[in-house]
C-alpha cells in the first residue's frame, strides 16, 4: 500500500468528527440523517483500510463493509419516512421543535 495506514485513518477520523458535529447540532432532521451517513462512511473507510493493511485474503473486511452499506440504506429509508410523517402532522422537521414526549 503506497499510502500510510494512519493517513487514511486520519481522513476517516475527520469524517467521523464532522458527522458527530452535524448529528449533534443540525436543526433540520434531514440534516441529521446526512450526518449519520457520514459517520457510517467513516466506519467503512476504517474497515477497508485495516483490511488492506493487515491482509484480507478472504475478503471479510469488504463483506462487512457491504453489509454496513445495506444497513445504512435501510436506516435512511425508515428515517426519511419518519421525517415525512412528522412533517405531515406537525408542518415542521426542525428537531428542536419536535418535543412531543417532553413532559
Amino acid at each position: 500500500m503506497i499510502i500510510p495506514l494512519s493517513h487514511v485513518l486520519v481522513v476517516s477520523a475527520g469524517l467521523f468528527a464532522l458527522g458527530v458535529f452535524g448529528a449533534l447540532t443540525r436543526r433540520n432532521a434531514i440534516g441529521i440523517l446526512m450526518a449519520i451517513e457520514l459517520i457510517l462512511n467513516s466506519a467503512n473507510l476504517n474497515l477497508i483500510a485495516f483490511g488492506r493493511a493487515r491482509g484480507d485474503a478472504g475478503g471479510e473486511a469488504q463483506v462487512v463493509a457491504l453489509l454496513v452499506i445495506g444497513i445504512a440504506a435501510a436506516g435512511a429509508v425508515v428515517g426519511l419516512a419518519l421525517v415525512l410523517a412528522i412533517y405531515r402532522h406537525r408542518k415542521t422537521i426542525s428537531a428542536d421543535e419536535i418535543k412531543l414526549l417532553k413532559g
Partner: protein
Amino acid sequence: MSQVGPLELAAKAAFYVVAAGTLAGAWAAVSARNLFRAALGLAVALFGVAILYLFLEAEFLAVTQILVYVGAILTLLVFGVMLTARMADPALPRWNRQCWAGLAVAAALGLGLAHLLFHAPWPAPRDVAAPPGLPVLGKTLLSTYLLPFEVLSLLLLGALVGALFIAKKEQA
C-alpha cells in the same frame, strides 16, 4: 521501496487531494444553510470516499458505494429535502443552541483520534500479496456470511414495508 517513481508520487498527491475534497464536502454537508447545497456537499464526500476505496484497491466496494449511496440514498435525501424544507430561508438558523458545545465535542473527538492514530504503536504492515478479488468476495459473502446476508435482505424488506406504512396518508 527505496526509489519513489514519479507515478507513485502522483498517486500520493492524488490521494491527499481527494482526501481534502472529501473532508471539504463533508464540512459543506454539515454546515450549509441551504439543505440542497448540503446534499450536494454530501455527494462530493460520498464520491470522495468511493475514490479512497479505489486507492485501497477495493474496486467492488467503490462501485457499490456510488450505486447505493450516490445513486439511491442521496436521491432519497434530495427528495426529502424538496418535499419538506423551506430550503433557502435565511431566517432559519442552521444549527441549534448546542452549536458551540457540539463543535467542542466534535473537535475534541477528531483531534483526540488523530493524536491516538499518530502515536499508537501500530504493528508493522504486512506485505500483503493481493487484495481479495471479486470471486473471493462472492464466495465469502455466500458461504461464511450467508446468514447475515439473508438477514440483511429481510431487514431491507422490513424497511421497505415499514417505510411505506409510516409514510402513507392516513385515512381520516
